């Protein structure tokens, strides 16, 4: 991506589930290296917005260019982005290390070693324990590790502070700072408006699927 290029340029995004429009008309722009906070009450469409931009689900209206690619170019967008979702994306019967190993094998390009990333998120001690024994907070950390392995240029973080203890909060802040220092862009959907508001470059607030 050239300097100063827009990491995300979205116009009038819309998405429905059955009769309900989760996203109605959301437009936003995010520059490279910037952090944008997406705020809004439960059910306002934050998760749907992130999922549409990460190409986890399709859009039912509008268009967007993510990392220079149109939304239809899912594979390319996925290659440069990573999504931290509500779902942990973990296999219960595999250990923490094995879960990360699976991810790194699919990442292809030279990636940090799973063991190192586990260390980074503070789970080295539990590397060989099956995920089924993990608490909610530990799963969140492991999901974070997944994101770090993918070395994204654009990170979509959906409620990254959820289920974490104060130490975990610090970890999230560090990771965001690290991503930023590598010129990656970060979109954070969160309820921790004050905390994230301190370092976010921009904020967008969703209400009933619209950006206020």
């Amino acid at each position, binding site marked *: 991506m050239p300097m100063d290029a827009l990491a995300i340029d979205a116009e009038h995004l*819309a998405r*429905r*589930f*059955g*009769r*309900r*429009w989760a996203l*109605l*008309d959301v437009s936003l722009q995010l520059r490279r290296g910037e952090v944008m906070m997406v705020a809004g009450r439960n059910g306002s469409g934050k998760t749907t917005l992130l999922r549409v931009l990460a190409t986890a689900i*399709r859009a*039912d*209206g509008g268009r967007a260019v993510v990392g220079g690619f149109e939304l239809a170019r899912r594979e390319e967008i996925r290659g440069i982005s990573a999504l931290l979702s509500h779902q942990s994306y973990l296999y219960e019967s595999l250990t923490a290390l094995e879960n990360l190993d699976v991810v790194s094998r699919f990442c292809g390009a030279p990636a940090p070693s799973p063991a190192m990333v586990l260390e980074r998120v503070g789970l080295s001690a539990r590397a060989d324990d099956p995920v089924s024994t993990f608490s909610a907070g530990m799963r969140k950390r492991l999901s974070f590790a997944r994101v770090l392995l993918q070395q994204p240029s654009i990170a979509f973080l959906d409620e990254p502070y959820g289920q974490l203890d104060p130490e975990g909060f610090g970890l999230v802040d560090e990771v965001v700072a690290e991503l930023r220092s590598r010129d990656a862009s970060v979109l954070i959907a969160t309820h921790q408006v004050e905390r994230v508001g301190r370092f976010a470059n921009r904020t967008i607030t969703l209400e*009933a*699927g*619209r950006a206020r």
Partner: protein
Amino acid sequence: MPNHRVSNLPYAFVALGVLCLLIGSYLGLFVAPPEHYMGDVQRIMYVHVPTAWNAMLAMTFAFAAAVMFLFTNDWKWDARMEAAIEVGVMLAFLLCCQGAIWAKPTWGVWWDWDPRLTTTAVLLFAFAGILALRRFVDDPVKRGTWSAVATVIAYADVPIVYYSVRWWNSLHQMQSSPATVSSAFHLPLRLNAFGVLFLMTGFIMLRARIASLRLAEEIAPPPADALGELA
């Protein structure tokens, strides 16, 4: 999906179809002479063969519509596919009933494992399953895509099923269906064939229209001023 002038063409097809069937059936039932070996029972051929041809035609059209939908994502193909599958399932069911009606007096059993009929029964279940699948998927895009995929897979199976049943059956006595018996009178057959064709076309068009109307509500673009919920 605006349909400014609702066409009456489907009704014309239905009327034409009924007319052909009336004439063809009259000729086949009362005018044509009874068949050499089987007698009057064989007259069912005048409905059985047309039904068979058209069932296959409906399924083929469903397959074509499925392929078109997978490539274009155009909703009219989903509507047409749904209509064709429903009509095809109806025709396949009729076909099996006719086969049973013919088999009982002829062979003494309700089902004679004729390869064509057995393939039809398998097709019937396969496509009925696809209709069931559609019922359980709420999202229109998923519903259209998945049932199109299932239709392609099921249709690709038809020749394989037919050959496997034929080989399987040939190890025993080779049964025949009324369709394999030749008849001197082609006119009633052709009339009925066209009759069912027109009827079927009319039904598919009407059914596709219903499907389109239902879809129109499901895939409408976001309303300009709604508050996030459709009224």
